[in-house]
């Protein structure tokens, strides 16, 4: 998987790159409009991360260029701008997703995965991890062909954990992922524990391995050992 990070704040770009690398995502970086257009013209990417405020141009112009050239890359806008208007304009110009800064790298990773799944959809809507299979459209989870009685939120949690395989996920990151639009209001992440506990119980009851590790004081980690 190859993505392009168009971001003038190089430290953020490097952090994203370093975080994604172990999960099989190769990142290239562009720090300004010109560099970004050069790379877009030369290579094809699975996904583009786009910051709207660039030193020599507007991120929206890149979206317009992509449309003009019939490029099919999925675009996720990562911006500090948070008005409804910029969001709508971004989507109208062909962006696929919009993530406001600051964000968790884990959140960005699963958003990219979901976007690529949507883009490369070839009748395959099943995600498998060892004995676990998740049908994204039917919203079902099976372990060794046994269907689990599982809530939508637990499937969401499971996808988030698997998508961030081998990553330590803070309770806050999980809480924000599960709460969606409401995340900004939350000041209590205790409910994450209950969800993790239930998911763990359901998976192990169905005969799955114990992949969810607790990282003391920090959060959880999906690990295949």
């Amino acid at each position, binding site marked *: 998987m190859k993505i392009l990070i168009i971001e003038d704040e190089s430290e953020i770009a490097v952090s994203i790159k370093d975080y994604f690398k172990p999960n099989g995502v190769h990142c290239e970086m562009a720090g300004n409009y010109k560099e970004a257009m050069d790379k877009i013209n030369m290579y094809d990417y699975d996904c583009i991360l786009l910051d709207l405020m660039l030193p020599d141009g507007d991120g929206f112009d890149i979206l317009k260029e992509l449309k003009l050239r019939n490029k099919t890359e999925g675009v996720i806008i990562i911006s500090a701008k*948070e008005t409804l208007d910029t969001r709508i304009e971004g989507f109208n110009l062909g962006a696929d997703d919009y993530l406001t800064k600051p964000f968790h790298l884990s959140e960005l990773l699963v958003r990219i995965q979901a976007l690529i799944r949507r883009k490369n959809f070839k009748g395959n809507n099943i995600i498998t991890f060892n004995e676990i299979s998740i049908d994204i459209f039917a919203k079902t989870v099976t372990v060794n062909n046994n269907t689990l009685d599982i809530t939508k939120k637990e499937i969401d949690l499971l996808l988030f954990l698997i998508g961030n395989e081998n990553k330590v996920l803070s309770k806050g990151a999980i809480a924000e992922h599960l709460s969606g639009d409401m995340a900004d209001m939350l*000041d209590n992440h205790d409910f994450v524990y209950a969800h993790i506990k239930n998911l763990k119980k359901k998976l192990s009851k169905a005969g799955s391995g114990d992949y969810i590790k607790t990282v003391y004081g920090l959060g959880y980690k999906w690990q295949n050992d």
Partner: protein
Amino acid sequence: MAWDTNGKMTRKLLNKTTYSFLIYSVIILLIAAPVFYFISQWLYIYETDEVLLFHKGAFAKESKEDFTESDIAAWNKYNRDVEIVGDMGVTKDSIVGKMLFDSIANEKEPFRILYSPVTINGKKFTYIEKSNLVEMEGMVFSIASMFIIIIIILLVGIIILSKRLASKIWKPFYDTLKQIEDFEIDKNKPPHFTPTSIDEFDRLNKSLERLIEKNTAIYKSQREFVENAAHELQTPLALFQTKIDTLSQLPNLTKEHSQLLGSLNNDVSRLNRLNKNLLLLSKIENDSYFEKQPVILNDYIKKHLDFFSEQAKSKSISIVVEFNKPLQINSNPVLTEVLINNLFLNAIRHNSKDGKIIIRTSDKTITFSNTGPETSLNINKLFNRFSKSDPSAQGNGLGLAIVKKIVELNNWNITYNFQDGLHSFTVQFEFSTT
């Protein structure tokens, strides 16, 4: 007439000047009336005495040459008011006032009587002439009533004239006053003063315009500063967040490291929340227009009840929803959601363990009631920014400030009360300020 906030009586400027005139006129009148009475009485008496002396002078000049004793008796017989009597020992003219019985009027009446020495044929006599003063009373009364009529006409004239004139002169002042009363610095509507030809009011208007212009500019830049600052903070916050995420992935983290990272994570998300709330608050303050559309509150709450129940679970709070019929309002959906979310989370955050939340809607109101602290909250500070009833609480003290701003923006009303151990916040939609 009106009462100001201290319970002190306030009076309109126009009335105040008129009252002063009136009071002055009444005092002058009260002093002038008796003085006038006495002066006119004195004048009348003086004139009467003059007439008496004149008569006597004429008598002495014309009649005494050929007067005989018998003439005197005849004179006395046919003259009602003049009498010649034997010398009474009067050496010079003297006039006295006396009450005498008047045979015609058949009662006692005031008289002026002149006693004067006269010599007829070398013999000394006393000349007595009396003059009835009864006409004086009538005259004084007619003068007094004329006086009163003139005074009344004068007073009424003063009142009407001063009111007319003053209200004309002070009109620009009242225009200005009305403009300032309607002026609110956080609304984008500077006052427009009507031009006036009166120098003082023109100066007043110009100074006010300058003052308002300057303050609005300061207020605006202050507001923009908050928005800009919050905006600028987002990039370093993003860096902070991604670096913590990266740091968390380092192998061989000890328990202490993880714990530190965990609490750092909480700090950064708290900072983030604070920043977003500040942004939202300044956005509500700075943007004057938000698109409105119908929102059904009951549906929104029902849709997100799971989310809130989840948040309430750790405190074992039970949530009771009492909806009679759909409550539909016309407002900006995003802001309305923020309003409901803040009130709901507020009711969870400040609740006690095993507590209760009751959400009730009526025709045009929604009420969030929750158990919690045993005492009523300080209503004066409740909606202020960064005012926290419990300093150790997780919230950032902006939730209710945001609620209040949204309520104000829509011209709604929010009230708080504490009754039977329940803290209740009621939002009244379509609130009219009559």
